[in-house]
């Protein structure tokens, strides 16, 4: 029976969800912005990876090294040009702006790449695995993704706790007004938070492209995964997000084992159960 495999696979998948959800959590924590285009940005990264790799044959690590900083820059600009304006235009405004962005991205992707479903061919790396025992084998890709996710989460955690700018991000999250009084340029701080969010989205988007198929309309379901990981784990805590991601991955993986059609529904239902009985999440950080 493949139950053990399903559990291990699900936990490893959780790492990817956590990596992907971190950006959503960070943008909400620092700016109180829920980026509804979060999933669509990951799909953009997926398409970009497919376009680069199939067009030029460059290796995966190179694609990651290009898209991540590119997205970081894009994030910084998006914040400074679009989101900053909407932050001052009222509370509903950011939601409408990011939702609009989501609709625009989806339909531009549709016009450019058509509605065809795609996957990124990661070669032998994406399909290979090593066997632990007769029953348990771990795919290279899942393990590498998990390790990458944990490394990135640790790096973000260190940035937030050890650097001056990181502290300013946390200070702004607590009290934006006072943060400017001790010298934080809120626009820059917000720009950095968005840049980190976009960079992690790019990483996650490329890794997701190798795991599962996608099309221009895949963004919203990816967004919901990220949102569920954040809420299940508890707002405002990176390790909570990792735990939330793993719970979600595990549920989806076990759901798929029972009936493939249950994959996504299973995740949603766990989210609703957490919402009903433990709305603060499993590992709540600060009270947001």
């Amino acid at each position, binding site marked *: 029976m493949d139950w053990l495999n399903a559990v291990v696979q699900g936990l490893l998948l959780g790492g990817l969800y956590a990596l992907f959800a971190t950006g959503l959590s960070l943008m909400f924590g620092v700016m109180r912005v829920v980026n509804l285009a979060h999933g669509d940005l990951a799909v953009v990264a997926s398409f970009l990876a497919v376009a680069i790799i199939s067009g030029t044959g460059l290796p995966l690590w190179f694609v990651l090294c290009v898209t991540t900083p590119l997205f970081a820059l894009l994030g910084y600009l998006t914040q400074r040009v679009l989101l900053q304006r909407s932050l001052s235009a009222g509370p509903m405004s950011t939601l*409408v702006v990011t939702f609009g962005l989501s609709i625009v991205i989806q*339909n531009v992707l549709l016009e450019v790449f058509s509605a065809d479903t795609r996957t990124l061919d990661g070669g032998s790396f994406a399909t290979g695995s090593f066997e632990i025992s007769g029953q348990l084998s771990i795919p290279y890709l899942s393990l590498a993704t998990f390790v990458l996710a944990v490394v990135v989460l640790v790096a973000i955690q260190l940035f937030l706790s050890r650097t001056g700018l990181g502290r300013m991000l946390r200070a702004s999250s607590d009290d934006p007004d006072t943060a400017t009084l001790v010298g934080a340029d809120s626009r820059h701080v917000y720009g950095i938070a968005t840049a980190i969010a976009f960079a992690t989205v790019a990483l996650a988007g490329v890794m997701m492209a190798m795991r599962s198929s996608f099309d221009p309309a895949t963004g919203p379901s990816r967004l919901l995964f990220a949102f569920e990981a954040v809420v299940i784990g508890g707002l405002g805590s990176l390790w909570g997000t990792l735990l939330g991601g793993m719970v979600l991955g595990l549920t989806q993986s076990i759901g798929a084992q029972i009936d493939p059609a249950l994959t996504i*529904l299973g995740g949603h239902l766990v989210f609703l159960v957490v919402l009903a009985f433990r709305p603060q999440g499993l590992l709540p950080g600060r009270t947001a």
Partner: protein
Amino acid sequence: MTISETLTSSARAAVTVRRSARSSRLSGGLLLLAALVLAVLPFVVFASITDSLVNLFILIALASMWNLMAGFGGLVSVGQQAYLGIGAYSVLVFAEQGVQAYVAIPLAALTAAVFAVPTSWLAFRLRGDYFAIGTWVIAEVYRLVTARVDSLGGASGKSLTTLSGIDPVVRGALTYWVALALALMSVLVCYLILRSRLGLSLMAVRDEETAASAVGIDVPRAKRWVYLISAAGCGAAGGVLLVTSLSVNPDAVYSVQWSAYMIFIVVIGGVGYIEGPLLGAVIFFGLQQALADYGSWYLIVLGVIGVATAIWVPRGLWGLLAERTRISLFPIGYHLDRGVDDRAGRRE
């Protein structure tokens, strides 16, 4: 007589409080006329025109319901498609049980409201922006669950067959009138709610939630009422959607695209104005017709206009218009007139 009584009575003599400005009495007549013209339209124009107007009416109803929640209740939802789907499937089920499909539409509204009770219990645990995305998850759950019910046609959906006995021309006209009634009703319901006690509470909550609860407004209760009413309205819209398209499938009816329509129509038209969704729906409808031959470009244009409006014209086009001209088709505020007016004064 105490000083304060003297002051109030002299103030009362100097100022009269009315709910309708003169412009709105005039516009009331115009609206009635417009409704009458729209009602006789099936007798004078081709069915293709009335058929596309049905879609406009559905959009007006959906957008009005979204506006009621967001503009007056402060509840920004991205999951109202849940009730659209529940409404459509309810009509399907009632029709299969032998209820006339048109008659089943009010029942669909009721069903949607019933489903909204436990849903609100979950969704209201999330605040602000998280509420928005949480409602979306819940709508997805409804979609996935519906797709698993074989008697509802599963993932590929099902057709409504009980209306096939009616002559297509008559059916088209009936559907048109039902859709028109839906649009008029949803606007009227918004208007009546906002003039009621509930409406006053809502506007107080929207303006300052903490203060509103401090003066004794039961904030969660007011919000829940709005949520239930909006669910009912969207349920009825879903019912009309079924009788006009005659088939339903989960992916289409529970699509988040409906939320995109509602949100952008309201934002472009003007959040928090009853007139906003009307204006926005007409603009959206025009855009859709004009760009009909260019695939999904109308959605891109819609998204860009929506984003631009949210940033630069947060009160929407009607807000812009109302600021400049002080026009109000649906007076829900109070107007102060200086000078003695016996007729209105006696109403106090």
